[in-house]
């Protein structure tokens, strides 16, 4: 089954639309009962989107949802609790895409706003553009971030990337922002470009920075160099301030001294 949702223009309104109902599973029983929220107003799916459905499916794995339109950046919570199937966003997507996701694939052709894949437990998110702040992070209160699955960003990532990450793999092909992997507990974080203050206060897990780690936290202990996938990387253990035993591998680093 292929569901195409083409977003109608909103005439200048920037009020976000909460669309946690947009997950493959929802479409198994038609589109009539699906609603989304613009601010405090509940709207039928067809008030916001032109809908076209091709084919049939009995299980979420056989559903692909395609989201199109110029204002898809206003859509929040798309793919929340998704457990199978596929969502493809042809443009940009709003905050909280793939929250609590446990299976399936979300592919975003444009940029993703904050909290992409927050508290995600499984599945795959591919973002062809940039991801904003708190990608693959946890929720306020220091809860665990992503615990499983994969998030791959082909552009840059914002601040607080993979905060509190506790499992799974996060790959950023461009640069990452400040405080990447802060409070990391477990899992793997790979940044191909530069980032600032990586894995501050980390407890465990592994972080790779193939560019330069700026303003490196001074409480990581250098223990040598290692060869990793053809690169020579400097290996640190930390965060000592937090009795941490995580591994940080960087190609290059600078302290704020």
């Amino acid at each position: 089954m292929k569901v195409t949702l083409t977003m109608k223009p909103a005439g200048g309104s920037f009020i976000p639309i909460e669309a946690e109902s947009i997950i493959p599973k929802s479409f198994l029983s038609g589109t009539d009962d699906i609603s989304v929220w613009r601010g405090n107003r509940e709207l039928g799916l067809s008030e916001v989107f032109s809908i076209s459905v091709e084919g049939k499916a009995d299980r979420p794995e056989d559903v692909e949802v395609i989201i199109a339109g110029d204002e898809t950046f206003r859509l929040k919570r798309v793919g929340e609790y998704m457990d199978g199937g596929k969502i493809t966003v042809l443009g940009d997507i709003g905050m909280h895409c793939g929250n609590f996701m446990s299976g399936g694939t979300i592919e975003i052709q444009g940029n993703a706003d904050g909290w992409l894949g927050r508290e995600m437990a499984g599945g795959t998110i591919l973002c062809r553009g940039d991801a904003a702040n708190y990608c693959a992070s946890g929720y306020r209160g220091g809860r665990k971030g992503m615990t499983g699955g994969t998030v791959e960003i082909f552009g840059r990532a914002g601040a607080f990337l993979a905060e509190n990450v506790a499992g799974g793999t996060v790959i950023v092909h461009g640069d990452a922002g400040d405080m990447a992997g802060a409070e990391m507990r477990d899992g793997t974080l790979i940044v191909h470009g530069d980032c600032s203050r990586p894995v501050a206060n980390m407890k465990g897990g592994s972080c790779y920075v193939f560019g330069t780690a700026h303003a490196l936290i001074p409480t990581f202990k250098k223990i040598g160099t290692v060869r990793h996938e053809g690169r020579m990387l400097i290996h640190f253990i930390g965060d000592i301030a937090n009795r941490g035993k995580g591994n940080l591998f960087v190609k290059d680093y600078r302290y704020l001294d």
Partner: protein
Amino acid sequence: MIVKDVVCPFCGCLCDDIEVEVEGNRVVAVANACELGATKLTGERRMKNPILRDGDAWKDISYDEAIRYASDMLLSAERPLLYGWSGTHGEAQCVGVHMAELVRGVIDNTSSVCHGPSILAIQEVGHPGCTLGVVKNRADLVIYWGSNPIDAHPRHLSRYTYYADGFFLENAFRDRKVIVVDIRKTETANVADEFMQIQPGGDYAVLSALRAIVRGRAESIPQTVAGVTREQLIRVANLCKEAKFGAVYFGLGLTMTQGKYKNIRNAIELVTELNRHTKFTISAMRGHYNVYGSNEVNTWMTGYPFGIDFSRGIAFYNPGETTAVDILARKECDAALIVGSDPAAHFPRRCLEHLADIPVVQLDPYPNATTAFCNVQIPVAVTGIDAEGTAYRMDGVPIRTRKIFSTEYPSDEEVLSRMYALMQEDG
């Protein structure tokens, strides 16, 4: 007439030992207050009556009309923002929460641009704190980190720390050490026993280094950290460990710099670490008057201290998404009610550009910068001068403010209650 034990309505210290001399409904003299408090208590230039923007002119309207306008505005909005609240009393804040719930709007207070990051940090690691009197009576070491009380909380030093004798410190000036940590040599730094000057943006690194040193891992620290020598870091760590009772007071120097709440988290974790060695507490230098009260009220009413979005009926909290600056800058609200604050003076310009585009109602005694963006402004009594109610001090101690004199102005609570009543009828 002299009124004693007045509670100062300016900053989060809520000094309650102020004496004012009143003539009619004017304060003619103030004793015990700092310059900031005295100016506020003697302030004049109130707005006389509600005003409505009519094209490029202002016209006077009645309270009834103004309240009806606000009620209609909030009821018809899809995502109204109810912002401010630090300049008013708890009773009004409670009505505000009920209104936000009813119209399914977003309610946020000024802590999102002062100590909101501190709250986010506390939510991650907790908060070892105490009331101000505990510090006054016991602390032999006080650290001001990224805070400058001489300018922002002028009586903090004399009432609670530097010059304040206490039960276990008969001569505080002699027996209590003060350390100032800042990126610039502030007035407060000039009176400190030790000044640790940090490169801008370096607080986090310095805090991490101190934590490692307190844990006995000084050897792994580089020679200098963000402009501070390892020797000084070790000296400061030792001063902390050797203190019988240490108290950290941090300010916007930590909350407003890069990393925001991570700086505070690190400071709290340092203090927690120090508690394995001695007694240490940490507290935020809450700025505006009853801002801490707005956090308290929001918390018991909604579960969250600020940045609460009721659009979906239930309370949703996510600072960075549900906070005023973000919502305004991203044009994500379609009406605003402002109470007890002045966002136009304190928010970045992009936020003001959106305020100019949407209907705005403000409750404030004075014409202020936000007035320019209002469709309606409703003048109210000043909480702590001609209205009374509950305010929470920066350390969580609730105090009932005194009314110094009476005026015709309704209080925030009265105006909001009338709005709420209308909204319940229509909503």
